[in-house]
């Protein structure tokens, strides 16, 4: 086999002629992230996460076969941002509720989210109602999580050569559909393989989902020693001797507050240098002083949430969204794919526990009004920083706070940066 040389980010590399760029780069120690590329499969070029510059033109890396003299850029600022943006598009296009997903921790898309350091998406979430289809024999297809990478379409075939999956519809309604008749022919092992090649949690095999406990999952620990630097966050300087912190939980579950307490005795050290103002921890209902930092748990699902959030914006220099709900709605936002009317009917009029003939949806001028959907906090006020996780790790929360308020530099360890 003939070896050729080519340039990757200015570095001279060698590989077998005609080898796929993703593999060739890997052999030369350069990682090009991709979701649709899968070993021997024909280049699919569908996810576009691997977009690189080839001789100045942008192309999907997985569609390149390396040739002598190629000049390829992988990690320019523009490309890194494009890659991140494409992943963000995937997150907003589907309904990726990591905390409630069976594949969480083993999900390649989620892992790339960590790799590229996505804390929140620049795009607003689209919240399209998508089908969860459990009719097939062994497989459950969850369209909420599908990124249309085409891996399953190309790879999963029955023993007698029929396709099991195929795209249907087009445009923004394109989805992967399953052929029930062909699916029934799959053996347990074949079905499990389909689940494995899916880079997200879109293909699941009934009874085989929660196989690994937390901590043992593929991407739980990540590359050893990898840190997420916080050097991009602006420091906040005040003259206050003791820094003031306010916290609140909007449409959240208080889980993030529980997590804040998880530094155990560290809390005592913290209290030496900070004091809490309005917060469930102090039970102060109103701001008594202007604060340096406000930690917001939960998103906005009713008018009161909006008021509280605006009040926080007014009284705090820095606002931090803590946890998935604050960042993009999180679990309460599951309702965003349904009309409000359907949700309220289900809750008050047609549920199993509602009284027969109930016609009243609770409302009173003193009760906050329910918004048409759950909003993320940065759709309502300016948010200075986002801490992902459900809940975020305690160290993650306090390291960010300490980084902002004090002189020292802090960073986040890989296992502390999670969406679940």
């Amino acid at each position, binding site marked *: 086999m003939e070896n050729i040389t080519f340039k990757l980010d200015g570095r001279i590399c060698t590989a077998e002629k005609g080898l796929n760029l993703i593999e060739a780069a890997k052999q030369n120690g350069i990682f090009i992230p991709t979701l649709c590329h899968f070993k021997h499969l024909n280049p*699919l070029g569908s996810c576009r996460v691997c977009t690189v510059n080839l001789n100045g033109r942008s192309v999907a890396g997985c569609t390149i076969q390396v040739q002598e003299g190629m000049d390829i850029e992988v990690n320019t600022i523009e490309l890194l941002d494009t890659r991140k943006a494409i992943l963000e598009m995937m997150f907003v296009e589907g309904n990726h509720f990591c905390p409630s997903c069976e594949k969480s921790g083993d999900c390649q898309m989620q892992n790339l989210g960590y790799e590229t350091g996505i804390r929140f998406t620049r795009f607003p979430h689209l919240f399209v109602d998508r089908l969860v289809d459990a009719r097939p024999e062994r497989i459950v297809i969850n369209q909420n999580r599908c990124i249309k990478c085409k891996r399953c379409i190309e790879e999963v075939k029955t023993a007698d050569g029929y396709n099991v999956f195929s795209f249907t519809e087009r445009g923004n309604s394109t989805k992967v559909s399953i052929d029930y008749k062909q699916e029934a022919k799959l053996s347990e092992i074949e079905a499990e393989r389909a689940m494995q090649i899916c880079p997200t949690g879109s293909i699941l095999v009934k009874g085989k989902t929660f196989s690994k406990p937390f901590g043992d999952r593929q991407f739980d620990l990540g590359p050893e020693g990898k840190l997420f630097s916080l050097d991009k966050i602006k420091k906040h300087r005040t003259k206050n001797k003791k820094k003031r912190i306010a916290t609140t939980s909007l449409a959240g579950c208080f889980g993030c507050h529980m997590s804040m307490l998880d530094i155990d005795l560290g809390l005592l050290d913290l209290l030496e240098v900070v004091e809490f103002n309005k917060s469930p921890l102090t039970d102060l209902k109103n701001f008594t002083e202007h604060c340096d930092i406000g930690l917001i748990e939960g998103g906005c699902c009713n008018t009161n949430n909006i008021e509280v959030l605006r009040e926080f914006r007014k009284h705090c220099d820095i606002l931090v969204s803590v946890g998935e709900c604050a960042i993009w709605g999180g679990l309460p936002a599951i309702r965003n794919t349904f009309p409000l009317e359907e949700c309220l009917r289900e809750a008050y009029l047609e549920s199993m526990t509602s009284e027969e003939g109930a016609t009243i949806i609770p409302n009173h001028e003193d009760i906050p009004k329910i918004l048409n959907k759950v909003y993320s906090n940065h759709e309502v006020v300016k948010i200075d920083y986002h801490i992902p996780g459900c809940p975020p790790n305690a160290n993650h929360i306090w390291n960010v706070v300490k980084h902002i308020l004090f002189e020292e530099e802090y960073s986040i360890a890989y296992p502390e940066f999670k969406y679940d």
Partner: protein
Amino acid sequence: MERIHLLNKLWEYQHQFGYISKKAISEISILLNVSAIEIESVISFYHFFQKNPTGKHTIYLSNNIISELKGFAEVKTAFEKETGCTFNELGNEEFSLFETSCIGLNDQSPAALINFQPFADLTPKKVSLIIQKIRNGENVINFASKVKSKIHFIPTNNKAVIFKPYEIGTSIKEGLKYTPQQIIDKISKSKLLGCGGAFFEVGYKWQSCKNNEADAKYIICNADEGEPGTFKDRALLQHLPGLVIEGMILAGYATGAREGIFYLRAEYQFLLKELEQQIKQFHDKNLLGKNIQEIEGFNFEIRIQLGGGSYVCGAASALIESLEGRRGEPPVRTWSATKYGFKNKPTVVNNVETLAYASRIIELGEDFFLTIGTPKSPGTKLISISGDVAKPGIYEIEYGTTIGDLLSIEMSQATSPYLVQVSGPSGECLNTTEFNRKICKEDILCGGSFMVFNRNRDILQILRNFMEFFKEESCGVCTPCRAGNFILTEKVKKIQRGLCTQEDLDEIQQWGNIIKLSSRCGLGKASPNALIMATEKFKDYFNVKIAPNNGNQNVEFDMENAIYEFDSLIKDTQL
């Protein structure tokens, strides 16, 4: 059955039953020996294939932007009122109503296809008459509109190329005096550019197909004119179909291909009969078939393939996928079509207009052609003008004509033009300072669509129409195009609601560029063009839209809209 006949098979069912049933899908899948979902996947890709029963009359009303500005809403309401059906639902036994993107009748909009027969210049009154006639049992074929577009302009001083007297067979007879290589040399010398929108050199394409040895080669005429606002191919097929067929035959002669395929967009199937008759005439005159004009071994056949309704199939690579009976997804390309095209054989895909020019060049000589136009783009170009002009229709213009000329009193007679969209939504938008720009390779090229909007038109409405179009017509394979155009559409809607900040405009630029950089095919790479350009070129318009900064760090948030649903629900359920 071969897979390449799948689209025809689907049309058989669609025409006969008005939809393609589950049973039909399973029958076809057995014939082709593939899983049923694969057939369903093809059906659901194409706009005109229905999976559920439709009424005896299917009505497709064009929702393109010109139509929207010329009374689409009233016509739509009239259709709903007269038929008792709702748009984009299944309808009743008699009628089904659907919206569709541009049907190539922009000079006569609003227009609709009823059982694929054209009905143009619609008004509520006209709609009521049409429905009345249908209810009286009249066949739509008998009272469909005559939609032959007017040719408003032909260059003077003997500079016309296309719209000249035509006699069947002239170009072929002239062409057969030369060897195939000489034909290609003539075309190359003429610097003819593809007229579909990509402006690829035609001579180069033919040469490379000729050079690639193979046991079969194909000439494909791309009559999938999907770019909103263009209708010059349709007009050409109505005025001079012979010229196009001769171009195909000459291309076959030059490259060594023996089979031509006419890929006709589904919207134009009312032209089918005429085209078939034309082809028959060519056969009768020994211009098609075996040993054409007594040249031993020069055989050429043409068949017509009907598309299924998909914009992206206008791109050569997607068109080939579609011809092969698959979804029209532009594939990852490692080879050009002139090497591995249709059925993996060397294939030339040329636009309708390109082929017409090719035959004229052979007929009139490349030297004549080179005397017209500009150095880099000799000859003339067909432009379809629509919108706020007094004379919408077809214009054959010499390359080098300015935008201003096109809008002038001598030509289209535009009324206070404000925004001109050249080459359709994927092209460029121009403001009034650019009307001195010339249509030619040296300045700005025009694929055929030329839409004029006056001062009273709302730019956001135009942009939203364009974005909705791309959102719907994206093939759905790659993330940036599928999700990105959806996201941008939502952005435009947000600005329309009055929630616009400078940040939103900046984000349109940034996000649009990401889509352009990373999309898989030309559709995605061009889709944000109009939006990006409009925000740059119409700063005055957008500056007024930006909400005044309220001085604090609250983001624009529409509380009224957020609680509207709850309030109205409470109002409805209480008391």
